[in-house]
């Protein structure tokens, strides 16, 4: 086992898959000589050459359209969106096109494409380097949406995404890139897309989250444990498909549900999970379903005070867990 950061795990997964399969290639802004602005592809152009490590023009729509067209011929492209905030020009190719290809060709065409997107805030990125973009993709049939929170999951899930024959939106929370460290097996492994992971067991309150916020939930669970409250933290890992079974099993056990995410509250992942619990675990609930999410403003603002006001904190999460436990 080696300890590494999330970005090192991403780089390791990319490298292994490019070595394993010649059809895999990366394309995006500054992924070549620069190695990517977060250095996800550092050293790749030297090892794999400019044919497979393509510095694209600053044009997200065509990065995605070209990757999609290459997938039609049987390549396995990994387009990189430099920051999630820049994904919008390419959204037609993702939601309008890629998501509908297999269905819209009656199964004739596959889209083995993994779209890597650094997302999320808490890094003083302001309105255009912090955005949470997951809700839109979560809403789109035909896509898979993956949100790893640790190096182990980033590597295992990214390798699975690259080998999958469907378009995968692979969301890497950029604050976890160097903040979160963890053990990663030395040997080859993959993690299946779909199953959630119970990161901490508990019997009093179910806390569902993903990405950076999941780590804040773990910190909050640790804090409330001192008060004798057992919080069960469910790390979704994959948003689409959603692991409804793990969520419902936990809710039925604890009777209380808190969903935490950084993305805006309205129409977010939490709304769907709340509806799921209301639909299928209503008789088990002992408290109203709670959501602790980003406020309905356009992303976290630049000023420190405003960014802090936006981000969910371990303290706020702990307070919400205590409130539910006491309900």
């Amino acid at each position, binding site marked *: 086992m080696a300890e590494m950061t999330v970005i090192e795990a991403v780089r390791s997964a990319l490298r292994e898959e490019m070595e394993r399969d010649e059809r895999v290639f990366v394309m995006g802004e500054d992924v070549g000589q620069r190695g990517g602005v977060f250095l996800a592809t550092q050293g790749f152009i030297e090892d794999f050459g400019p044919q497979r490590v393509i510095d694209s023009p600053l044009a997200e729509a065509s990065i995605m359209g070209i990757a*999609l067209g290459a997938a039609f011929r049987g390549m396995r492209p990994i387009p990189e969106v430099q920051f999630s905030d820049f994904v919008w020009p390419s959204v037609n190719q993702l939601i309008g096109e890629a998501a509908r290809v297999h269905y819209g060709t009656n199964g004739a065409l596959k889209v083995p494409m993994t779209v890597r997107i650094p997302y999320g805030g808490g890094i003083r990125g302001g309105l255009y380097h912090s955005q949470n973009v997951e809700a839109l993709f979560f809403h789109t049939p035909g896509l898979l949406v993956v949100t790893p929170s640790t190096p182990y999951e980033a590597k295992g899930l990214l390798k699975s995404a690259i080998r999958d024959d469907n378009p995968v939106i692979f969301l890497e929370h950029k604050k976890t890139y160097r903040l979160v460290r963890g053990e990663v097996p030395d040997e080859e492994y993959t993690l299946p897309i779909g199953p959630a992971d119970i990161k901490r067991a508990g019997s009093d309150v179910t806390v569902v989250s993903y990405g950076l916020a999941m780590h804040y939930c773990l910190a909050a669970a640790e804090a409330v444990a001192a008060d004798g409250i057992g919080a069960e933290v469910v790390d979704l890992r994959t948003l689409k498909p959603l692991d409804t079974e793990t969520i419902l099993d936990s809710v039925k056990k604890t009777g209380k549900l808190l969903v935490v995410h950084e993305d805006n509250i309205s129409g977010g992942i939490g709304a769907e999970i709340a509806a799921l619990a209301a639909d299928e675990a209503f008789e088990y609930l002992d408290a109203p379903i709670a959501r602790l999410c980003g406020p309905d403003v356009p992303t976290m603002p630049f000023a420190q005070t405003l960014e802090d006001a936006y981000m969910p904190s371990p303290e706020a999460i702990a307070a919400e867990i205590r409130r539910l436990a006491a309900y």
Partner: protein
Amino acid sequence: MTQATSSLPSETDANGAVAIARRSADVDALPDGLTAEDLVEVCRQMILVRTMDERIWMMNRQGKVPIAASCQGHEAAELGSLLAAQKDGDCFLFPYYRDLAVKMAAGLTPRQVMLSFMGKEGEPYSGARQFPLQGADLPRNIIQISNVVAAGLTQAVGYALACKMMGEDTVTICYFGDGATSQGETHEAMNFAAIHQLPVIFICENNKYAISTPQDAQMVVIDVAARAEGYGFPGFVIDGLDLVACYEATRQGIAHARAAGPVLIEMKVERFMPHTTDDDDRRYRDRDALDAARQYDPVAVFPAQMVERGILTPEQVDAFRADATQQVNDATDFADEAQPPDASTIYDHLYAQG
């Protein structure tokens, strides 16, 4: 590559649409690789496509075809370019929604076409999930995913990129209308193709209207092909009603694409019908200009030329028409009696397995 034909003199008419000087196709001096037998076969196809196109429109009026975009006026451009692609034997096509002639000449049967327009089970492109003849016909090397114009251009370029990466000789041919040239992805696609010298041909079927919006409200240049210079590759303007010219331009374009990268061929065509069966073009088309254009209708002119040159007899042309009517009648009856997809299939093929 030498210029396939000289640029045609053109100017905008009172409606802002580009009017170009038309001329008859030169079927006497056939270019490389084109035989009289080819022209006979294309003549047969052209008559079949027009007969089908007219029947589809009629079936819309009978309430049996929900929507159709007619290719009337585009046949020479589509059949001429496709013939060059077929003779080459290693081309992949990204057509657009007005390319019925491309799709039929590529091998789709009249029955399949009618199944598609009526949205019946067995529809070959999408299983009747999409608008007619939209999706993919991989056995005939065709992909056309969506109705978002220009989205197919970047995909075609990506396809060409993959072919190059895999060391294959395939040339990708991408068709689009003048309307699509306003999209940013058209620029992005052409620029990327130029940077990587990809084997791709951009064929703009310029019929001068984006639904109702005439060309001078879409651009200030007369020729879309003029933009090619800005990307550093050649652009050509062709009379899109001249089948032989369209064949030859595409033939040379394929050779150029394979050897030296992208090329843009603008085929000046006419749109004889409204945008779709849901459109009424009387609100925006100059009827006199439309009538004037109709005298160059390739489906009338081309067979007449063939007879004039003694390549076909009038009886043979009549036989083509009779055969086309018979095939279209058969296809209509067949599709009319076919079943629509079962409602239980709505979730099929949402995700690829494995």
